[in-house]
């Protein structure tokens, strides 16, 4: 688990630092090249040399484990519109990271960059300590990054097994290996404790919203995903269905699969996230253990980029008031 004390202990330099491992990134980083000398953890990222990352810095979760995914100063523009500005974020393995932000904060662009749909203009993506270039969605899925979009991309007319294996059907004697695929699909769903479907031969169109989400996630898991990105997984769901999906996320975590959840729903975020990253106007205004934030401080961060409330509890300092940008 994360150690809030380690984060909270250095509010002073965190407020100015912009290194990837810091918990605050903002426009003041022009001056930070010379600061944080006391923080050894920041040194390796200061170098853009991928060699340096062979001895990666510890993530704040588990000091011995490198982050699964590390974003270093990611920037992205669409023409004159700057959508992402120097985003630095670590995704530790086996934890749930919630990315929250208002509309237009850059959440979608960020996950599309991670899932290979967009290529960043600036910065680097490090996967398990190695620099990677994600030019196509396939690059990302090959690494083990699976993205489940809001529309789930399921074929309603096909059954669960066919959807889970879509594009990766197993063939035996020139025919689809239906028995093998059905067994594997059942196993995967059982591992995720998806017990509510009557039969894996049901057409996906007959499933409820939560079950559909489960099928989409199970498909990702079956492809050996190490990181699953969920885009607004509970947006269209009722209370019970939402609970099914949140349980599913916890199950992924228990299988040591890292999860990034994009969400508007702060209640869901707080019930499931280990870490929270707040985006505002394309900048990461705060990131840290979920326990340090309450709903009000998250809303403050999402809307203004700072939270007095947070400062008062000294849990996680924030910086980068809008006027500075």
């Amino acid at each position, binding site marked *: 688990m994360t150690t809030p004390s380690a984060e909270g202990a250095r509010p002073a330099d965190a407020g100015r630092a912009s290194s990837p491992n810091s918990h605050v990134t903002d426009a003041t980083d022009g001056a930070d090249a010379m600061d944080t000398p006391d923080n050894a953890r920041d040194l390796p990222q200061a170098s853009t040399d991928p060699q340096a990352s062979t001895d990666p810095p510890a993530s704040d979760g588990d000091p011995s484990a490198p982050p699964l995914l590390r974003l270093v100063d990611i920037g992205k523009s669409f023409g004159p519109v700057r959508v992402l500005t120097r985003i630095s974020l670590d995704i530790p393995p086996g934890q749930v990271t919630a990315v929250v932000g208002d509309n237009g904060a850059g959440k979608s662009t960020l996950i599309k960059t991670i899932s290979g749909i967009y290529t960043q203009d600036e910065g680097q993506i490090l996967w398990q300590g190695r620099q990677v270039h994600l030019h196509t969605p396939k690059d990302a899925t090959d690494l083990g990054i699976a993205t489940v979009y809001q529309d789930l991309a399921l074929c*309603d007319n096909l059954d669960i097994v066919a959807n889970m294996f*879509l594009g*990766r059907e197993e*063939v035996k004697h020139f*025919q689809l290996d239906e028995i093998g695929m059905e067994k594997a699909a059942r196993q995967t769903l059982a591992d995720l404790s998806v017990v509510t479907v009557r*039969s894996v*031969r049901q*057409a996906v169109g007959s499933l409820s919203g939560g079950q559909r989400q489960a099928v989409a996630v199970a498909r990702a898991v079956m492809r050996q995903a190490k990181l699953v990105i969920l885009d607004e997984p509970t947006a269209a769901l009722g209370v019970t269905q939402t609970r*099914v999906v949140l349980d599913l996320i916890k199950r992924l975590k228990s299988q040591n699969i890292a999860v990034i959840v994009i969400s508007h729903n702060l209640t869901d975020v707080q019930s499931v996230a280990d870490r929270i990253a707040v985006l505002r106007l394309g900048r990461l205004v705060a990131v840290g253990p979920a326990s340090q934030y309450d709903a009000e401080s998250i809303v403050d961060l999402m809307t203004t980029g700072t939270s007095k409330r947070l400062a008062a509890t000294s849990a996680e300092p924030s910086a980068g008031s809008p006027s500075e940008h």
Partner: protein
Amino acid sequence: MSTDVQGPPPEASESGDIAAEVALSSPDVIADSLGEYAKIWVARVRNGDSGALPVIAGLVVIVIYFQARSSLFLSADNLVNLIGQAAWIVMLGMAEVFVLLLGEIDLSIGYTSAVGATFTCWLLLPPHPAPWPLAVLVGLAVPAVFSGLQGLIVTRLRLPSFVVTLAGQLLALGLLLEVMNSAAPSGGGTIRLYNSVLVDIYFGSLSPVAGWIVMAAAVALAGALFLVRDSRRRASNLTAPPLSVTLLKIAAMAVAGVVVVLVGNTNRGAGTAVVRGVPWVVLVVVVVLVAWSVLLGRTRFGRYVYAIGGNAEAARRAGISLSRIRVLAFTLAGLTAGIMGILYTSYLGSVSTGVQGGQLVLLAVAAAVIGGTSLFGGRGKMVGAVLGGLIVAVIYNGLELLGLGAAPQYIWTAVVLLAAVTVDTLARRRSTTA
């Protein structure tokens, strides 16, 4: 089994029964008993995904009606005639299934099949006929390539297939006139089929004994395959259809086979001539039906056709090459149309520029849709096109037998087609708004 912490899915919340939940699923693999199978099946019919039985029921009703009006209808003579008429409608219907499953349509295949058949007849012209397999190959390749190119245009330029293939229909008619002009300059727009093998598709028959043997072997083989598949599923601890259901299916196949052979083996010769046996064309249709059913149901290609028809964007994100599958499906539609062209030529003994290619293709679409293929893509089966084609053929044959002219034939086909499309659309609306 389905009771748990989770509430019922929204679409089932009103009635609260399992029927709605499984309405879109195959009863084969969900039901544990005959009773449950029937219950699930009824739910599916209400959702429009009816399978074969309602179509068969409709067919039986129409047959009874015509038999009541004319005792000649069920005579062996007329039934063999009916099989002949049905064969090419069925074949063209199967061609259309490939593209309809994608949510596309091919309006050109009525004329391209005639273009292909003209090439075949041309190559077989005396005094120097080419080997007939080569002539057939050319006759199949021409419509296949034509439709494949249309598919390429539809995918690459992202044009609606309706418009592209409407243009293709006109182009094919032009090609037909042009090719005919070169092949038989003095034929008055007609070229005869000079090959006895191809003529025998319609006018030759298996011997009565061979008919029984082939039928028995086919039913036994199919039945064995069904049973082996079921037992494999059970051995792997997966649900399989109840044994009673599988046995019923095999029995139905056997009954259909016996009826066809009995009808075929009845003497239908005029005067002293004895003509008996199942026409070869039946075998051709059955072989194509089995081959295409396996292709659609048991291979990656088939799976991708359904996936693209269901949700093309999902298929694309799954890494499926949409353009490759689409072009291949169009090509197969053309190829099947080519087979139909040969059958039609065998039936008439010649190819003519007077062929009603536009009407043929509409009958083919009607056959496919009556047989349960959705115009919106993603739903339908080859066997449905066979049953739908039989319904269209029965209407034509029956009304002709009653001495009624073309007008009621068109009107009744229109009524049945409209009914089928209405069912299809209502079912779709129901499943999307549920």
